[in-house]
Structure formats: structure tokens, C-alpha cells
């Protein structure tokens, strides 16, 4: 039996179709993936993302543990701030990409991917033990509901039901807050590329009221509940990574296009391997492909040049904003220059696709298409 969100019954009442993702049965869509997608770009959407993990790190050396175990020097991240980063194995491959939040009371709240919280928690506790650090990670995933409110109108909506100042909350800012009178962690984070916030609510029962309130108050902003289908196309248009797809088979942050997230000025697990890979060069890198011909690239399809396989699609779909096939693909370095034309093998056909710069959909898309 797959696990379910504490809000499962609410999703049924809202007419959701479900899908099983990383061991969780979650809403795939409520009405239409396309409509939900466009509503997040233009208005606002509410997501239940309780399949994501929650790990709390406490202890004198919590920052040292995070610095050692991630690409970021956590000492640099002040209270009320968060960071997107990744946890690596010694060989430089990614165990998981995460967000950690430095909460006002010194604790850190980590959000691992669905089904990864146990692995991440055990890894962090092993690292702490081996390095004699006074820090402990605790997997509290089942004790939290995570809601995401995403879209250009998300702040106007959330402002009405939250008791802290979110006007000036920067990207990756975080705080404790009451939302609809319920205790929550709020952060300005998300997976859609839009203005947005995420709420971590415990105990899970409390989240039901918040979910209903957001939909109620959100009516004037044309809110819709959004399923995992649109969550996937929204993140793909922004070239955000999906762990199960983009890290499959073991990928380093250099390969996955996360060079920007590597803070080289500190020591971390996997750093030596990354330095070696960087020096050696010639590694496949994640590449953005926009289809010229009709057709939809999907996970696993081959990328070719002159009949030779030069890469493979890790994530692909149609872009609801652009109405074109788009893909993230691992491509050999000599073939991934922006503007190059490659071919994606779709069943017995080849469709042409152009290498483009990320993201596929710019932040001004909604303004330009209103």
C-alpha cells in the first residue's frame, strides 16, 4: 500500500485523480494539468506536497554538519534564511538535492525529496558520528504536512492569513508563523519558478483547516488546487531537477548543472571527486532542448547527432506555456553548444531539437502573455 497524505480525503472531495509517486499516492490533477499549470503561471495554485520529507537538525555543530555534508557553507546562512543545495557521496554523486532552512531558534529544517528522508537522515547522522559532531538529524516526515502556495498572486493571498511580515521576506527567507491561527514554518521557496511560499505544518491534522482557508481566501485570486502533473511541467519549464529523473544512475552536481550551487571555499564530502572531474573535463552535462518538430520527448529517449547517440533525455514533456516539446537531457560536451540542432529519437521518428539556455520559460512569460 502506498502512503497517503493526511489531506487525502480532501483531495477526493475536490475530485482529484491520483498517482503513486515515490511510494506516495498523491493528486495527479484535479481538473486538467494544462489549466492547473497556466493558473500557477498567471494567478496562484495550492499544492499538497506532503510526500516531500522533513528532517530537523539540532545541536551545537548543526551548521558544521550541514557544511560538511552539502555544497554550501552553512555558517554563511544566517537565521531566517535558507539554501538550496545537494548532499553528495564521497565519489561526488548526488544522494539528494535539498533545501535547508535556518530557523530563528537555531534549528535547521531540511526538505529532502519524497522517499529520501530516511536515507538523508541516516547519512547525516553517520557523518556527524564519524566527525565527532554534536548534531543530530531526526526524520519527522510523517509528522508534517507541506503546502506550497505558488504564483504571482501567492503573496497577496498569504498576507491575508499569516501573522508575520512576508512583504519583505527574501527568496529562501523563512520564519515561524501562524497561518489561519495554526503554527507553521513559512519559507519563500518553491518548485515552480514563480513567486511562492511553502508551509510546514505539524501536527498534520492542523493542515486541513489551513488548506480549506487558503482555497476560500484564494477565491478572489482565482486559486486552484494543483496536482503533481502540473508540478512536474512547471518545474521542467524552469529547468529544475527531479531527483528520480535527473540523478538516476548517479550524477554529480557538475553534470547536473549545479555548478552555481557549489561553494568551493569550504570542505565538503565529495569535493575531491568534483575537483578531479572538473580538471579532467569531458563529462556529460544536463542540457535544455527545445523541440523544433512536433513530438514530445520523454524520459529515456535517445538524443542523436548524425545518427550517433550523443545523449539521453532525463525529463521531457510538452511545455504548456510554449506548446512545444521540451527536454532536459544529459549530452556529451561537444554537442551541447547553445543553438546546436540535435535529434531526439521518438519511437521510429527523429524530431529536431535546439539546445537553448535555461529556463525554457522566462519569469516575464505571464506578463507577456496576459
Amino acid at each position: 500500500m502506498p502512503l497517503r497524505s493526511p489531506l487525502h480525503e480532501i483531495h477526493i472531495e475536490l475530485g482529484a485523480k491520483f498517482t503513486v509517486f515515490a511510494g506516495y499516492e498523491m493528486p495527479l490533477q484535479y481538473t486538467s494539468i494544462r489549466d492547473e499549470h497556466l493558473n500557477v503561471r498567471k494567478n496562484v495554485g495550492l499544492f499538497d506536497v506532503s510526500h516531500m520529507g522533513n528532517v530537523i537538525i539540532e545541536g551545537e555543530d548543526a551548521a558544521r554538519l550541514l557544511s560538511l555534508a552539502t555544497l554550501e557553507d552553512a555558517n554563511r546562512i544566517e537565521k531566517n534564511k535558507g539554501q538550496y543545495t545537494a548532499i553528495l557521496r564521497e565519489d561526488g554523486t548526488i544522494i539528494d538535492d535539498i533545501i535547508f532552512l535556518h530557523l530563528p531558534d537555531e534549528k535547521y529544517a531540511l526538505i529532502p525529496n519524497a522517499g529520501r528522508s530516511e536515507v538523508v537522515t541516516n547519512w547525516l547522522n553517520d557523518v556527524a558520528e564519524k566527525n565527532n559532531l554534536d548534531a543530530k538529524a531526526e526524520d519527522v516526515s510523517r509528522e508534517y504536512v507541506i503546502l506550497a502556495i505558488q504564483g504571482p498572486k501567492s503573496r497577496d493571498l498569504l498576507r491575508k492569513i499569516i501573522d508575520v511580515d512576508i512583504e519583505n521576506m527574501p527568496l529562501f527567507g523563512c520564519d515561524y508563523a501562524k497561518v489561519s491561527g495554526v503554527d507553521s514554518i513559512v519559507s519563500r521557496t518553491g518548485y515552480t519558478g514563480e513567486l511562492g511560499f511553502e508551509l510546514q505544518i505539524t501536527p498534520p491534522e492542523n493542515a486541513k483547516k489551513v488548506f480549506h482557508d487558503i482555497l476560500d481566501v484564494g477565491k478572489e485570486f482565482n486559486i486552484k488546487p494543483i496536482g503533481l502533473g502540473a508540478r512536474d511541467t512547471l518545474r521542467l519549464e524552469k529547468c529544475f531537477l527531479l531527483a528520480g529523473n535527473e540523478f538516476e544512475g548517479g550524477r554529480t552536481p557538475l553534470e547536473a548543472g549545479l555548478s552555481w550551487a557549489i561553494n568551493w571555499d569550504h570542505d565538503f564530502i565529495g569535493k575531491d571527486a568534483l575537483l578531479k572531474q572538473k580538471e579532467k573535463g569531458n563529462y556529460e552535462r544536463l542540457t535544455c532542448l527545445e523541440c523544433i518538430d512536433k513530438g514530445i520527448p520523454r524520459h529515456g529517449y535517445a538524443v542523436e547527432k548524425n545518427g550517433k547517440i550523443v545523449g539521453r533525455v532525463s525529463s521531457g514533456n510538452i511545455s504548456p506555456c510554449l506548446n512545444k516539446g521540451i527536454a532536459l537531457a544529459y549530452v556529451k560536451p561537444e554537442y551541447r553548444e547553445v543553438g546546436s540542432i540535435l535529434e531526439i529519437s521518438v519511437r521510429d521518428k527523429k524530431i529536431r531539437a535546439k539546445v537553448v539556455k535555461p529556463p525554457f520559460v522566462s519569469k516575464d512569460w505571464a506578463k507577456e502573455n496576459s
Partner: protein
Amino acid sequence: MGEIRMSENIPEDLKYTDTHEWVKIKDEKIVVVGITDHAQKELTDIVFVELPAVGKEVKKGEEMCIVESIKSVSEIYAPVSGKITAVNKELEDAPEKINNSPYEEGWLVEIEIANKDELNSLLDADAYKKLVSK
């Protein structure tokens, strides 16, 4: 799958397959084929259709076209054996017609039937209704 909503449309005058294609007998030789309202509702957001070549011979039960929604790639099976005599080219630019009008504008292909007996093996509206309400 299997949930039937009150609004589901299953026209009495069509034949059906258990893989959710519909068949309309156009004349002595030719049938029109598409996917049912139930099927389009399950798929939602149809964004791409790959049609067969006109003239292609198809066998009952074999893959005949591909319909892709945002979430999945689905094979559409030939409900009868025969030759493809027409395809709905408009779907190449407007695949959403299958969502909006599964029995009219969203038709997929016309097939010249090779063996009329095969029509007897198709489901009538009542039988199909039972199938999707299971």
C-alpha cells in the same frame, strides 16, 4: 480507472472495444474510429497524436496510432482489420479536439474493413457502459 461519471457520453449508435476505441459504421465498407469520452477523460490534456499513413494495412487488436497526453503515451488499437483510407490530419495541429469532441471532430482514422464478421465481436453501448462502470 473505471469510475463512471454521470456526464459520461456513450452514444447508442456506436460500437466499442474493451480498449476504449469507438467504431462508427459509415457505409458498407468503411468505419470511422476514435477514442471514447471515457478514454479522453482518463487521459485529459491530449497534446500529440501520431497517425498512421493512409493505405496502411492494420490488424484487429494491433497498435494503430499513438495519443499522448501530458502525463502519458497511449497506444490506440485497430478495432477491426483493414486498410486505413483516411486520417484526421487536423489533430496534428489541434490534438485537443479529442478532448473537446471525442465522437465528432476528434475522430482518428477511417478503415476499409477486411472482414465484416469482426464487427460482431465489438461491444454495443450497453456492454461498454457496463465495462467502464466496473
